[in-house]
């Protein structure tokens, strides 16, 4: 039998040193008696020396970092059996069960996890429920944690209230911050903190006003803010009256019903009518149902009278958000190709056959969907308007959808591309691929080849558009 005397209730270092030697000495868990030093020596000098046999120096072992973190956490628990449980876990980790911590359903692991959870919750609640009271520039709080967590909870307050002088007093341990260092002192009593603060009435007013009496959920409140904390929370004294009066307040509200608006309120409306947003006809288009899911209609842009007009399929994710055509990945590729073909984008009119983004939501993304024939037909009205207004010498149809919208028939892009085609109502058109087609090609060699063909088509178009 080995007896180990730990210096104080949170003597993690003492436990770790002793446990290490015990494992090396082959001391089985049931043969170790873990004791915490007498209360008088609490947090005193760690003079007690564990009665553990000496071991040879050449034997070593290691344990997962996770275990050391777990051990350090659990050391703060008030359960007297915590050190024995930790030693038992250590023993098993070093005796054929190196992956023990992965098996959360193991009896001892789950017990340790439960303790760690309790510690984390206790620390969290301390961060949440400490209430400072100010006395001559010094902020003081009284708090009663369940476990030995003051050391672990304190750094949070130092990071948050770095330039305040504050102290948190608890029954076991107190902590003080002077702007530079955390100091720990023995436990204190509630009488050591002021019994009121100038702002507590304001805080209670806020607490009461933010409460909605029509949504009473007392159990939900109690599970997160258990009753044991209430006596140290200044706002908690409002809980009873708020619950008591909730039903009456809701009933009275219903009884009073609606009143007629004061004449004053009508004056506000007249005095300050919100500025009307510029109502583009396009943005109010309801010809098909694509507007429902899209952010906005994306109009074309470019100078009226541009010699070259480029027509894509529809706005994509980025275009839909920005409200501008060809600003996403396909737009960037188009920009590059236009530069390579010797075209200045600012001189062209760029638009889409369909003005709203069509997509299906999948996971976190919006997946592009090809517009169907009827959507293209409905939107052609806008495209025709644009063509009539711009009167380009040549229209470049990027992809089959644009081709269909302008030629009013099914097109075969690869067969018909690169040639100057006549349009029914006058004007000319050149058909080529959509830049997103290039983005989708998996083979890098094919990508280069197709890109060059695309640039060649654009060059043909610009030569035609700029001639004469």
């Amino acid at each position: 039998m080995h007896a180990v005397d730990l210096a104080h209730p949170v003597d993690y270092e003492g436990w770790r040193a002793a446990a290490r030697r015990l494992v090396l000495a082959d001391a089985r868990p049931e043969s170790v008696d873990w004791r915490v030093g007498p209360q008088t020596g609490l947090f005193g000098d760690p003079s007690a020396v564990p009665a553990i046999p000496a071991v040879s120096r050449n034997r070593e072992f290691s344990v997962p970092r996770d275990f050391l973190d777990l051990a350090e956490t659990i050391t703060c628990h008030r359960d007297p059996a915590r050190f024995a449980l930790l030693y038992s876990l250590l023993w098993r980790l070093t005796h054929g069960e190196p992956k023990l911590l992965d098996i959360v359903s193991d009896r001892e692991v789950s017990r340790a996890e439960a303790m760690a959870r309790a510690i984390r919750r206790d620390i969290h609640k301390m961060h949440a429920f400490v209430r400072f009271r100010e006395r001559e520039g010094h902020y003081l709080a009284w708090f009663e944690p369940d476990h030995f967590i003051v050391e672990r909870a304190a750094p949070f307050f130092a990071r948050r209230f770095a330039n305040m002088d504050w102290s948190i007093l608890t029954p076991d341990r107190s902590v003080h911050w002077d702007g530079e260092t955390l100091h720990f002192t023995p436990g204190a009593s509630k009488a050591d903190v002021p019994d009121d603060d100038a702002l507590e009435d304001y805080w209670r007013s806020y607490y009461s006003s933010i409460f909605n009496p029509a949504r009473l959920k007392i159990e939900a409140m109690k599970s997160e803010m258990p009753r044991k904390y209430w006596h140290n929370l200044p706002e908690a004294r409002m809980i009873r009256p708020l619950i008591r009066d909730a039903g009456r307040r809701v009933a009275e509200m219903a009884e009073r019903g609606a009143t007629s608006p004061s004449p004053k309120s009508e004056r506000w409306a007249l005095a300050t009518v919100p500025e009307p947003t510029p109502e583009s006809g396009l943005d109010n288009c309801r010809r098909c149902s694509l507007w429902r899911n899209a952010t906005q209609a994306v109009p074309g842009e470019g100078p009226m009278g541009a010699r070259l007009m480029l027509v894509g399929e529809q706005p994509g994710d980025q275009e839909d958000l920005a409200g501008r055509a060809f600003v996403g990945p396909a737009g960037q590729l188009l920009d590059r190709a236009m530069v390579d073909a010797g075209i200045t984008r600012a001189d062209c009119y760029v638009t889409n056959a369909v003005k709203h983004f069509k997509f299906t939501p999948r996971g976190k993304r919006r997946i592009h969907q090809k517009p169907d024939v009827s959507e293209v037909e409905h939107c052609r009205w806008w495209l025709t308007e644009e063509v009539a207004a711009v009167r380009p010498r040549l229209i470049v149809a990027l992809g089959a959808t644009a081709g269909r919208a302008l030629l009013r028939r099914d097109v075969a892009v690869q067969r018909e591309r690169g040639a100057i085609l006549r349009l029914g109502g006058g004007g000319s058109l050149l058909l080529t691929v959509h830049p997103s087609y290039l983005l989708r090609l998996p083979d890098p060699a094919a990508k280069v080849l197709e890109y060059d063909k695309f640039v060649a088509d654009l060059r043909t178009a610009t030569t035609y558009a700029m001639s004469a």
Partner: protein
Amino acid sequence: MTGGSVELREKLEILADAAKYDASCASSGSDRKTSAGTKNGIGSTEGMGICHAYAPDGRCISLLKILLTNFCVYDCLYCVNRRSSNVRRARFTPEEVVRLTLGFYRRNYIEGLFLSSGIIQSPDHTMEQLIRVARMLRVDHGFRGYIHLKTIPDASPDLLTEAGLYADRLSINIELPAEQSLDRLAPEKDAGAIRRSMGRLRLRIEEAKSSPKEPRFAPGGQSTQMIVGADETDDQGILATSDRLYTGYRLRRVYYSAFSPIPDSSSSLPPGAPPLMREHRLYQADWLMRFYGFDAGEIVPSGGLLDLQIDPKLAWALVNRHLFPVDVNKADRESLLRVPGMGVRTVDRLLSIRRHKAVRMEDLGRLRVQLSKVAPFVTTADPQIGRSLLDRVDLRQRLAPKPAQLSLPLLA
């Protein structure tokens, strides 16, 4: 707080009361900030936000949630602050908001400020007032706590830039799930402007994240709120709208707010208790969409409304019994996530355990799952005894919570 303090306390009451119908109080997921090492900074923001108190409505109080003013030129029927309402009106000065925020913060009552406002004069003017408070906190007082600013749709881009510089989170409320409802109940609000503003916010947030050189812009992302039960939109329609908001604008959260009777309410709105259980089921369904791989379309039954008696995952499993039981020792993560009563954490732990041993019922028990709920839908390494519960017609009755428990949240 000396001089005129009675008046300030009254303002606080009026302008907190005016803000309480906004459900959001989150203070999580922003960039990390600390006042440690600063000369006179105050506050910190670290990963998870903290709920500093809970009101008897079960809601967390994390931020000082107030309106700068409840004067408003809009007349949205569902809103307590609408122009035609006879509620008492008040207006804080920016200095008063700063004093209250810092005073509360120093006493550890709050994580920060959630500031909203009625629309006064114009969207830009209103936005400027909100930004002014945020600027005073951040620049003049070195405040490093959390700031959530309500964004006024279609406020100018420069104002948006400045708001994103100071705020941790920005939000624009979509208010109602259907555009027609917004037209009817909030005639001055423009659904298109709301969507455009959300789109703009997403682009700005992503731009700021793309490079450390970009100026800070609302690292806590954007969120919104939808009022449930003020119009006729069913749950299918609500979740489809949420799905669009999540995928389109990458919102951190969509908050659902059961329409709650407001003082001096309009007669064209439903009277009576807020549909709290429906709100709860919507949150559960929302969770299934975001973390459990469910599509918006498959969660809601054909009637268009979520089952109020049982949770949406259990309801889904009961009509898809052919997909069960799932073998906890073999099934993939996606299938395990669809088992009623098993959360993401439980599933990940199971996957870890089964690499080392065969999983039995007692393992599930120690993972703190509700065995009676999970058991009919899984097989474990234990021998199967008797007929599967899956075949029983009364499985739903067996698994549905007892009526007493169900009525609990409806206490009011």
